[in-house]
């Protein structure tokens, strides 16, 4: 099924690339981010930034000129 047509340029859908790339990241690569909120790149290949609180992460992304509506937010559990 093709993605439905969207009306805003920042309104695009994640595609298969995100899932394929994120699956290649080994779990241990997330350990430095344990207990932090992270932002994945839109293609799932890397972590763009992290912060202790999600609101801080929004601020950091915006300050860096990264569109927060085009990242994937997540939290890395400290297990």
């Amino acid at each position: 099924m093709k993605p439905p047509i969207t009306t805003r340029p920042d309104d695009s859908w994640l595609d298969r690339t995100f899932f394929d790339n994120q699956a290649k990241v080994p779990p241990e690569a997330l350990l430095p981010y344990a207990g932090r909120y992270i932002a994945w790149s839109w293609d799932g290949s890397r972590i763009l930034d992290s912060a202790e609180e999600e609101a801080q992460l929004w601020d950091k992304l915006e300050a860096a000129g990264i569109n927060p509506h085009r990242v994937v937010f997540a939290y890395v559990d400290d297990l």
Partner: protein
Amino acid sequence: MTMRFQYARPPARQPVISLGGRWVRPRPLVRVTVVGPSGVYVREALLDTAADDSVFPEIAAAKIGIDLAAAPFGEASGVGGAPVLVHYAAVELRLTDGKEFRRWPAWVGFTAARLKHPLLGFAGCLQFFGAHFHGDREDVELEVNALYPGS
């Protein structure tokens, strides 16, 4: 048509005894998009069959243009957590596994409480899907049901 999501495998700092010494804790985390009037919020969220509602952080509401000042409010709870105050708003939710694409209107809650993982609970999400959790494959399949209101 079915969407299939591989479980996330967050790393553990020590072997997980209950999983035979594995170094990860597989969890049904999926990437959901919340669509508001002025933007989208894409987030890894937990499919939680014990959660009454679908709940997201309040910061996201503000960032995608949802005004919660006059929104109806109530309490929502998930497994292992105390009930939290939520303000409800109507949004569009989207899920995709990269092959299938689903979007539907939903009432979700937003909370100021610190959420590690937003919850995709019964109201707003699981009420519209059949969910099959495959422990052996460590993935979950979602299939729309007769109540599904979206496309």
